[in-house]
C-alpha cells in the first residue's frame, strides 16, 4: 500500500487524466466487442490478441522507418482482412452453436495468436516512439504525453465515424437489422453470412486502430492480450449492448480505476485488480438480479 496519492493530491489529477485518455481506447475495443456480441452472439476471447496484433503492425512500420502514427490507417485495413479470414476459417462454424463453443474456440485462437506473435516479433516488451513530445499542466506538476492526447482524439474520431457509418450506410443498416432479428433479415434478402463476415472484420479493424494507438502510448508484448479482452467484456456488461455513451463512460471509468489502483496498490497488482474487479462486478450484478429472481443470461 502506498498512500502517496493522498498526500500529493495533484497526482490524482494526473491519474484521472491518464486513466480517462486510456479509457477511450478501452471503450473503442469494447465497442467492437459489443458489435460482434450483439450481431453474432459471440464472445471473442481473442479480442485482446487482435489489439496486440494491430499494435505490432504499427510497430513493424516504426521499425521500417515509417512514423507509427500512420499505423492508424494501415493497421485497420490489414486487420479487417485478418478478421474476415478468421471468420471464414473458424467463426462461421461457431456462430449458431452453444456460446461456450465460441468462447473455447476463440480461446484457442487467442493461444495460437499469442504464440505466433511470440515467434514473429519476439518476447520483448516493445514500444513505438512517436516523438510527439509532452504537454505540461499545472505548473509542470502534471505531465501528459502528446501521444496519449493524440490517441484519444483519434479514438474518438473513429468511434464517431463508426457510429455514423452504422446509422447511414447500407451495410450498417444491414448489420443492425441482422442484430435485431437474423432470420427476418434473411427473409428480407440480407446476406447474413456477408453481414457477419463484415461485422467481424469491422471489429478486427477497430482492434487494429486501438492496437496502433496502444503501440505509441503504451507497450506491446505478445502475452498481454487477455486483459484487453477482459476489460472490454467488463465495459460491455456494465454499459449494456448498444449503449454508446455508456460504453465511453465506463471505459473512462475503468481507465481511471486502473490508474488509481496503480498508484495505491502498486504496478504488480494492476492486472490482478482488473480481473478482480471483473469478478466483483459480475457477482454484484448477480446479487442485484437475484432479488428479482432473475439472473444474467
Amino acid at each position: 500500500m502506498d498512500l502517496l496519492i493522498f498526500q500529493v493530491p495533484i497526482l490524482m489529477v494526473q491519474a484521472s487524466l491518464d486513466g480517462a485518455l486510456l479509457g477511450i481506447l478501452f471503450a473503442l475495443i469494447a465497442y467492437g466487442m459489443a458489435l460482434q456480441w450483439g450481431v453474432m452472439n459471440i464472445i471473442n476471447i481473442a479480442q485482446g490478441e487482435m489489439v496486440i496484433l494491430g499494435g505490432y503492425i504499427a510497430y513493424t512500420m516504426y521499425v521500417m522507418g515509417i512514423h507509427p502514427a500512420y499505423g492508424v490507417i494501415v493497421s485497420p485495413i490489414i486487420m479487417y482482412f485478418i478478421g474476415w479470414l478468421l471468420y471464414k476459417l473458424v467463426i462461421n462454424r461457431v456462430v449458431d452453436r452453444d456460446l461456450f463453443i465460441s468462447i473455447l474456440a476463440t480461446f484457442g485462437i487467442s493461444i495460437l495468436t499469442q504464440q505466433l506473435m511470440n515467434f514473429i516479433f519476439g518476447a520483448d516488451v516493445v514500444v513505438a516512439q512517436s516523438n510527439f513530445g509532452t504537454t505540461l499542466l499545472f505548473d509542470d506538476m502534471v505531465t501528459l504525453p502528446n501521444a496519449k492526447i493524440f490517441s484519444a482524439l483519434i479514438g474518438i474520431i473513429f468511434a464517431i465515424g463508426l457510429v455514423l457509418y452504422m446509422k447511414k450506410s447500407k451495410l450498417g443498416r444491414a448489420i443492425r437489422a441482422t442484430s435485431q432479428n437474423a432470420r427476418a433479415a434473411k427473409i428480407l434478402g440480407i446476406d447474413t453470412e456477408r453481414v457477419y463476415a463484415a461485422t467481424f472484420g469491422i471489429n478486427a479493424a477497430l482492434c487494429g486502430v486501438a492496437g496502433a494507438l496502444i503501440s505509441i502510448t503504451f507497450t506491446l508484448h505478445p502475452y498481454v492480450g487477455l486483459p484487453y479482452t477482459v476489460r472490454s467484456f467488463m465495459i460491455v456488461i456494465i454499459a449494456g449492448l448498444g449503449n454508446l455513451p455508456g460504453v465511453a463512460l465506463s471505459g473512462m471509468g475503468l481507465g481511471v480505476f486502473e490508474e488509481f489502483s496503480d498508484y495505491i496498490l502498486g504496478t504488480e497488482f494492476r492486472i490482478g485488480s482488473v480481473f478482480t474487479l471483473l469478478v466483483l462486478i459480475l457477482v454484484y450484478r448477480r446479487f442485484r438480479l437475484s432479488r428479482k429472481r432473475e439472473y444474467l443470461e
Partner: protein
Amino acid sequence: MKRNNLILYGALLVFGLLAPFLFPAFKLQISFMWILVILALTWDVQGGQMGYNTFGNILFFGIGMYICASTQIGLFFPLEEWTASGGEKTFLHTPSQYFLGLSAGLVLAGIVPVVVAALIGYGILGLRGHYFAICTLGLGIAAGELAGGIEIIGAGQGMTAPPWPKGIGDTEFRSEFFYFLTFITMLATFTFLRWAYQRRFGLVLNAIRDNEDKAEAMGIHTMRYKILGWMVSAFFVGIAGGLVGNMVGYIEPTEIAFAGATYGVFMILMAILGGKGTLWGPVIGAMVFHIFKEGFWTFFLGWQYVALGVLIVVIVIFFPEGIMGWLREKFPERFGEVVDEADRKAQVVLK
C-alpha cells in the same frame, strides 16, 4: 456387459499397479497422466454433468499447491526465510518431518480449496452461461496475479517445494512413491465420483444441466447442490495441486500454480475430447490427450502451444461430442439404448 466392465476395470488396475515397473522410464509421465485424469474428471463435474462451463477450477489447483508446500515448510521452518533463500536449500527436512509435513500438507490442500469453494460458491455459481465462464476465467487469472504479489510465498519468483529427504531411497524410489500417491488419488476420485453419480447427487446435477429453473421448481435446492459439486471438485483438484507442486519441486504463480494456459485449458479440452457428461469420457480423453501430448510435443519443438491452439479449435469445432459421444452414436446398444431398426431407417437427416 457387467463382465466386460469387470475385465476393463481389472485391466486398468493391473496396468496402473504394474506400470512403474514395466515402463520405469515413463514413471513421471504416467504420474502426470493420472493427475490429468483427476483434473478432467473433476472438471466434468461442472462442465459435463452440471452444465456449468468453468475456466476457474485451476484456482483450487493453485491454492492446493501453495497450501501444501507452505504447510510442509511452515510446520518446521520459518516460511519467510525459506522463500527468501530461494533455491539454496539452507533447511533440510528429516524423513519423519518430510512425511509428516507431506501428509498434513495434502490434507490441508484438500480442505482449504473446499472452504474457498464453499465461500465463493454462492456468489459465483449464481451466474449462468457465458457470464459464469468469463467470471471463472477472471477468477483463475486474478488469483495468479495476486499470488504473484504476495511476498511470503515468493511473489513472482515463486518458491521451492521441500526436496526429498536424504536417507530413504534414491530418486527412483521418490518417483515410485509419488506415482502411487497420484494413482491412489486418481482411483479415489474416480470411485467417489462413480459412487456419487449413481446417487441423488448425480441426478440433481444432470437436472441442473438440463433445466435449472424446472429443477428448482420441483423443489430441489439447486444452489446447495451446485456448491456441493464445486466443493467435491475443489477437494480433489486441491490434492492434485499439492502433489504436482511436490513432483515439479518448484512453484511459480502464473506458469505452474494458476496455469490457466496449460492445466486450466487441458482439463477442459480433455473432458471435451473424451466426451463430457460421461464418467469414462474424461478418463479416456485425458489418457489420449496425454499420450498425444507427450508423443508429439517433441516434434513440435517450440511450437507446442501453436499446436495446442490449433488442437483446441479443431476439437471444439469438429469433435464437440468427444470420443464417448462418437462411440455412443456408433454402438448405441452398448450404452443401453434400445434401437428400433425400423425407426432408425425412417429417420430423415434434417439440414
